């Protein structure tokens, strides 16, 4: 990859992207799988690939593909169910590392983030030095690799990181943007999905360079006024967006697609309990309390409804989330409707430290919350699900799918 030796004049934006994140974390945990195709994805006949190592991608496996199809392409792959709690923990450490470098960190998901390092130069050197520093620290501390794009704008930085994958680093200085950008296919541009790409290809516009040399009005007639203007600007490397530090989470939750549609309220209740426990665990690890609980129910015909209720007092206790989620579900008065998916969300989050907490009369000081905190500690030592409500224990063979 050329460019990595150039200095980074005019570059203030980093895009850091973990390589095959979930799969890499799994390989770290199972070192014997290193160098082999590994797929993280849901079990059962509706599971989809959420992450795959580069060894698996070589066979054509990619995210969002049904696991069954991935296994036809790459029968030797090891399929793992995924451990979101672990990925979230690794993600938090990585994001914390970024925030130690600059306060202006905008995470896009668990495994990628934009960093604005314009204020960090004096302390840590230029953007290139910072990018190298991040790559070596992520590798040393987390045992996984990442790719970093360095540029003067967010979208070029993101394209640069994609271009350098895996385990790469690419700097695109402002004078080099056109040379980097114009040979790229139009589909690489932010905002160009399969539909827009079709339209552009039909106009004979294959590369970003082709796009750049079409009058803006022509482009606007083809894809609409706003999108046309946007694409024209991007094709000349103009992206006015700034890295915006993330706001605290507004909500967190979990949902589960049943492997076959379910009409038994007991099964739904049990799933709501599992999702509530998981959501509460996330609240506790993030130090948040939820003021509102909502549930989502998707029926067999994909019709989807949500219901929410505000709690008398904010909570991070799984049992309380469940009591509310279950009450919301029961209030739907479903008569054995066939359900495809249920979800539980904790909303209107407040920081545990800053939130006043309404106490309850006559509640033992060491109540349900302490029990759940103890379960959290057990989970950190012995793995997720080490301690869980009795109703969620099933014969080992039954093992419910995890996303």
């Amino acid at each position: 990859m050329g460019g990595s030796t150039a200095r980074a004049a005019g570059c203030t934006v980093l895009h850091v992207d973990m390589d095959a994140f979930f799969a890499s974390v799994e390989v770290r945990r199972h070192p014997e799988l290193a160098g082999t195709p590994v797929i993280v994805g849901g079990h059962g006949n509706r599971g989809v690939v959420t992450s795959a190592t580069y060894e698996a991608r070589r066979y054509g496996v990619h995210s969002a593909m049904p696991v069954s199809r991935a296994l036809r392409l790459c029968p030797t792959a090891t399929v793992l169910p995924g451990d979101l709690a672990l990925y979230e923990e690794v993600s938090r450490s990585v994001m914390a590392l970024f925030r130690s470098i600059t306060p202006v960190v905008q995470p896009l998901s668990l495994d990628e983030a934009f960093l604005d390092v314009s204020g960090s130069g004096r302390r840590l050197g230029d953007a290139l030095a910072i990018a190298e520093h991040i790559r070596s620290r992520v590798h040393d501390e987390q045992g996984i690799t990442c790719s970093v794009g360095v540029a003067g704008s967010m979208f070029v930085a993101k394209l640069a990181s994609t271009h350098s994958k895996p385990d790469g680093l690419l700097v695109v200085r402002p004078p080099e943007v056109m040379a980097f950008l114009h040979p790229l296919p139009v589909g690489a541009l932010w905002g160009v999905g399969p539909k827009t790409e079709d339209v552009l290809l039909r106009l004979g516009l294959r590369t970003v360079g082709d796009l750049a040399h079409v009058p803006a009005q022509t482009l606007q007639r083809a894809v609409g006024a706003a999108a046309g203007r946007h694409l024209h600007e991007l094709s000349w490397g103009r992206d006015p967006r700034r890295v915006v530090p993330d706001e605290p989470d507004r909500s967190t939750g979990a949902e589960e697609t049943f492997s076959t549609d379910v009409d038994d309220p007991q099964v739904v209740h049990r799933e709501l309990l599992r999702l509530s426990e998981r959501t509460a665990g996330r609240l506790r690890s993030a130090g948040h309390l939820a003021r509102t609980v909502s549930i989502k129910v998707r029926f067999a015909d994909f019709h989807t409804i949500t219901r929410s209720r505000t709690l008398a007092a904010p909570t991070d206790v799984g049992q309380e989330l469940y009591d509310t989620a279950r009450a919301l579900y029961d209030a739907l008065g479903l008569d054995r409707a066939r359900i495809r998916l249920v979800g539980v969300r904790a909303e209107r989050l407040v920081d545990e430290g800053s939130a006043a907490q309404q106490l309850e009369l006559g509640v033992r000081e060491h109540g349900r919350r302490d029990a759940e905190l103890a379960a959290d500690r057990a989970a950190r030592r012995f793995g997720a699900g080490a301690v869980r409500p009795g109703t969620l224990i099933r014969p080992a063979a039954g093992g419910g799918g995890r996303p």
Partner: protein
Amino acid sequence: MKFRVAREVLADAVAWTARSLPPRPSVPVLAGIMLDVEGNTLSVSGFDYEVSARSEVDVHATDGGRALVPGRLLAEITRALPPHPVEIVAEGSRLSISCSNARFSLPTLPVEDYPSLPSMPSAAGVVESDAFAEAVGQVAIAAGRDDTLPMLTGVRLEIEDDLVTLAATDRYRLAVREFAWRPETPGLTAAVLVPARTLADAAKTLTSGPEVVLSLSSGTSGEGILGLSGKDRQTTTRLLDAEFVKYRAIMPSSSTSFATLPVGMFTDAAKRVALVAERGTPLRCEFTPGTVTLKAGGSDDEGQAEERCDVEFDGDPLTIGFNPTFLLDGLAAVHTERARMDFTSALKPAVLSGVEPERDPDAAEKPAVRPGSYRYLIMPVRLPG
């Protein structure tokens, strides 16, 4: 059925009965009000399998008989009629209402499909109607409104010979009130759980006579029912079949500090400061000898308010947080000019009670009968930081 009645009298009776009609009746006939004329008495009744209401008025009857008419419509019509005598006649399957120049003809519902109202259980005792209304009002505010926990939506009614104790809690506050009554049989003991909203509503509207008779059938004699009879009006409600919390164990037996508050001034201050307390944020009360400082709000994107109020305070300075609604509900219920708040710690329940005015020892009149104790426990809010 044919009778004549003053518009006011009819409208009151119908309106009172109509309150207990179900908003969404499970069977159509339950949306009806039963008019039943016997001699010169008209009874107006409604029932939704949980609550029954029956009021009686004197009428000039020409013919006796019964008719079941759509209740809400009847209530709206009688309320809107001009102030003239009303004549009501049942004509086949319709009911005609005439008043001055206005005439209505309503379809009736099938009388034979209407369930019979539960019979009034045997009388358990008698209580002064205003005292009963006050006591129920003071306690019912602490009851929960969330139907998922039926136990919390009720008022516990305990009878111990000539003393009745009412208690209700929604987990965050607990209100307890005792009052004296005259039991039908000496030594009577009983404990039941009554739906709070129904009880509060009934007690408030049964004050036209001096006394209310409480009737009880529980456990052994069929389904648990509480009957309340005042002047010309009687209502029954099904009892809740749930265990109530052992609230006496929650009551703190001692306190480490207490404040004596001027209720009016303290309430006004708390209301003002609470204006900036967004939903779920507490009112912070800093008690020091002679003063309480009320604070609310505080973070950068909220308003802030602070007000001092003179109080008597005995004990170590204490900062304690309350849900402002819970505090104001209690202050509004003590019904005395001064109130006392007892504290154990900032995380333990505070107990609000009324302070009886001191009597001039030389006053000629005998001290009135002690009206009975009222205590309102509030669980505090753990303040951040």
